[in-house]
């Protein structure tokens, strides 16, 4: 199978993730979409790694996973804390500072 197809898939996943960030209201879902984008990046890295025949891309994918895990820790902590104080995780409700 042509490895380029994996690239198309990764671009598709990335786009779905980006669209999700822009249109979804729930902070958790938005955050999951960001994770989807990061994983799309991983797929692209691995595919390019295969194409170029060097390991850099695969190594980067591991780094991305670690970073994504750290992001989850911080992100969930923040989202949970705001959910507990407002009983809502909707990003539309977060509007204390509109002009």
């Amino acid at each position, binding site marked *: 199978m042509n490895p*380029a197809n994996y*690239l198309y898939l*990764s671009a598709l996943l*990335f786009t779905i*993730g*980006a669209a999700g*960030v822009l249109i979804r209201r729930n*902070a958790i879902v*938005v*955050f999951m979409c*960001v994770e989807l*984008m*990061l994983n*799309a*990046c991983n797929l*692209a*890295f691995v*595919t*390019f790694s295969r*194409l*170029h025949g*060097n390991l*850099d*891309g695969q*190594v*980067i994918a591991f*780094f*991305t996973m670690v*970073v994504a895990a*750290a*992001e989850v820790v*911080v*992100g969930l*902590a*923040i*989202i949970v*804390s*705001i959910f*507990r*104080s*407002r009983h809502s995780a909707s*990003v539309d409700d*977060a509007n*204390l*500072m509109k*002009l």
Partner: protein
Amino acid sequence: MSASSVHSLWTTAAPVADKFPTPHIEYAQLSPVLIVLGAAALGVLVEAFLPRRSRYTAQVALAALGLAAAFAAIVALADKGYGTTKAHIAAMGAVAVDGPALFLQGTILLVGFVAIFTFAERRLDPRAHGNQVDSFAAQGSAVPGSDQEKAAVRAGFTSTEVFPLLMFAVGGMLIFPAANDLLTLFVALEVFSLPLYILCALARRNRLMSQEAAVKYFLLGAFSSAFLLFGIALLYGYAGTVSYSGISSVIDGTAPMNPALADTTGNDALLLIGLAMVAMGLLFKVGAVPFHMWTPDVYQGAPTPVTGFMASATKVAAFGALLRLLYVVLPGMRWDWRPVMWGVAILTMLAGAVIAVTQTDVKRLLAYSSIAHAGFILAGVIATTPDGISSVLFYLAAYSFVTLGAFAVVTLVRDAGGEATHLSRWAGLGRRSPLVAAVFAVFLLAFAGIPLTSGFAGKFAVFTAAAQGGAMPLVIVGVISSAIAAFFYIRVIVLMFFSEPKPDGPTVAVPSLMTSTAIAVGVAVTLVLGLAPQYFLDLADKAGIFVR
């Protein structure tokens, strides 16, 4: 018959694979980063093992010592010539040790050092149950207004973990402008962003706003770093490597090309889209239009000491990374990126200045002013001359201290609900406390770029560089938006000095030596860089060469 010869009857020895080469790490040259991250890790241990009452002192001392030691290491490195003659790439191609890196790292360390003073201030908020408290929540995890929070306040808890968080952020910022491959760039970005997200959520007053700022910052920040990462993936696909020199040699066509990979390597679509996405990620951190949306909300909601630190240090780090990317990786592409950057710079300068005119909150006003300043700095970035680099370095140093000082002043003006940031509350401040108002006026005049302040010297430097780089129209737009920007700086001065003070107006808290020092440093740097900037310009000139 020995065991091995029996073994060889039915097996053959595979050729021994070469051992992985032991990475060669230049610890001495990386010492500033290592010291800061080491101190941060120690800070975590302090938080875990020291009794609560002694944590504050230990953390402040540790953080201050760590930053001071790291700064000493920077000075030592620069003294040995790593900024000029011995500039090279360390840590297996991951980190550059050169003039711009050392200059920006030094600036970030000094900014961090001064920021510690504002973080550690405990005199401003009234005592809670007999305990001195700082600007940070008693317990970040406690729900605002809950019994748990009240108990935490009564017990005199304070969030001393802000100091290790600050140190981690500083550590990431030190690597960011020195990163010499895209992976290091990405990791450094996350290392300094994640602690900032948490710091934003930790305000003692207005906790809901603070949490909201953190969510916004986090979601948008993660979104933008996903873009950055995908851009990195595309650039990796384009060049087959993520090291800056590797990519730039593929762009220049000097790298040996594998004919089998002609479809991917050197594919301009990959390059252009990847470049655009990486630039987007960096411009987000810089706060350039159209990626500026987070700035006002985050600046307003975050605890003011954090805002001051973030506004100055993040900008320094992010512009450093942007400069290195554009000047080291993409000089061959400058005819492609310059027009785009022109557009971004013009938009940023004008939008920042125009929207700021309508603001009614001091912190939001400063946020938009920081956007406008990002535009001015971009004008210097576009110059693509050595003068462009050094002028941007100088501007960043000048700007960061003005910002730090201005936000430190904002922490002083308070009423019952904490800081009084609404502009109408600042009316007549000049009558009530002339000194504080005068100091803030100095910062505002520096923002406005009035001669004899550091803001003017910086602005003149970047505009001259831009004009010499052939961007005279940018200079004219810059001058016009400076005039617009001057309007709202002046409006604040009018409010402070020419309005009658309100009877129920805010009081100016008398700060401890900590914040006073931070403000004094801000004023001193503003005036020194305005009156006698030659030494620092020389420094920036000497530091203005990237290593490739």
